[in-house]
């Protein structure tokens, strides 16, 4: 439907405001350097959008850190660059105070917590793995395996260069299914604070043909929940009676996963 395609475009264009400052222990200048402000696409990954920030800070750090990998931290937590920007934003900031304040570090890389990302190839490889996983769940991997590698490349370049049409020309194939059946399983990750994200097998239809909703998923896999807790997808508190098949087709990230953020009410 045309209006549903508009939703795809709106999701694609989502941005979050970020303000990056340099970690004081890495700063080589007498006065605190200016922070760097930028709007970052929700659907992208930090290593793809932080080149300018890195260059901005390079001249302000000591010479022995020039080759170091820059890593980001939000309120004391190292940011997992391999999660989409929007997911990290919803989990760590949630729009409580804007812009989202981040600190850029060039030393003491937390190797227990963060995957190394010295080149863009690491991001590409991670992105392709996620696509294969998602298609494994949706179509037993049949669609992604049968694609030519130039199609894989087009997905990646579409994401890197913010080209909606280029990306969706191929991605629509990964979103194909018969209206009666839907995907085999819905690729999702349920993110909660302080634990590894949950992944499970969930079908879009029950045995008696009823459409499975977000409410069903939360009931099954969210162990504790109380008033005031928020469940956020793409920065939106989605109605819980929305069918998972529809959510998977329209609110997934480019990695084809539905990233669901559970944000408990702070006591």
């Amino acid at each position, binding site marked *: 439907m045309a209006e549903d395609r508009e939703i795809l475009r709106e999701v694609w264009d989502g941005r979050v405001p970020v303000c990056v400052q340099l970690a004081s222990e890495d700063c080589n200048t007498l006065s605190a350097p200016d922070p760097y402000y930028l709007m970052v696409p929700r659907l992208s990954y930090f290593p793809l959008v932080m080149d300018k920030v890195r260059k901005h800070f390079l001249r302000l750090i000591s010479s022995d850190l020039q080759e170091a990998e820059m890593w980001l931290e939000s309120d004391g937590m190292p940011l997992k660059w391999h999660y989409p920007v929007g997911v990290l934003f919803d989990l760590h900031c949630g729009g409580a105070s804007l812009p989202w304040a981040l600190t850029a570090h060039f030393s003491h890389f937390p190797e227990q917590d963060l995957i190394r990302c010295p080149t863009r190839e690491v991001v*590409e*490889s991670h992105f392709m793995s996620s696509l294969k*996983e998602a298609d494994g769940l949706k179509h037993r991997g049949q669609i992604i395996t049968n694609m030519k590698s130039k199609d894989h490349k087009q997905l990646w370049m579409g994401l890197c260069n913010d080209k909606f049409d280029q990306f969706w020309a191929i991605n629509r194939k990964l979103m194909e299914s018969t209206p009666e059946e839907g995907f085999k399983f819905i690729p999702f990750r349920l993110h909660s604070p302080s*634990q*590894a994200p949950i992944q499970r097998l969930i079908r879009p239809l029950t045995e008696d043909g009823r459409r499975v909703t977000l409410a069903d998923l939360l009931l099954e896999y969210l162990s504790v929940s109380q008033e005031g807790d928020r469940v956020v997808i793409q920065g939106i508190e989605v109605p819980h009676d929305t069918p998972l098949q529809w959510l998977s087709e329209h609110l997934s990230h480019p990695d084809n996963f539905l990233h669901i953020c559970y944000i408990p009410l702070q006591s």
Partner: protein
Amino acid sequence: MSTISYEEFKTACLEFLELSKKFGDSWKLRSDIQDKDGLCIHKVQHIKSKSLKELKNKTTCKIDRQLEEEEEEESSDPAEMETHNTTHFTTYDYHIVYSLSHSVPVLYFNAWHSSGQLLTLDDVWEGVDVTHREQILSNKWGSLTQTEHPLLGRPYFQLHPCNTAKLIAQVLPQPPCDAATLRTYLICWLSMFGPPVGLEIPLCYFAEQNTESGCVK
């Protein structure tokens, strides 16, 4: 295509753990998994650095003693003891976890220098032994990378599971159907994915196979 369900994976692991106990091997259930539905078995191993030395004696099952025996054999001159004290070891921690998306087991691992520092991906690629280099490195970004452990949520190296089902089907055409054949499935899988990253499977595991499958298919 040879895939297994999560329940079958659990059975295969528990059977495998029994064998490990029997042979004095050190596979254990991972106890720090928050997800109550997440099963992970793991094994820690120390390998001499410089070259990823394959454990020479495959027939023995006293695996922990092997490295000591190798050292004793090499050193006849007491003056050489000093060099042995500075021999560097790489510590490997191998994890077997289930892949929901591919319905097969997956091998994750971490590796640390004796200094305690984690190996880089380049170190890991460098450490792939001669026999498997071509196979892994011809498509390194699609075979062996650093990723997030699905149950621990921390960085681990992973051998990609994309081709697992196809590979196992070539060796085990009959799908597993009982505890014994599921155990065989896991051992077969491990014998393919372990060696490229330094994990050898002693022959005693293979000697334990039933001569006939109990399945009627």
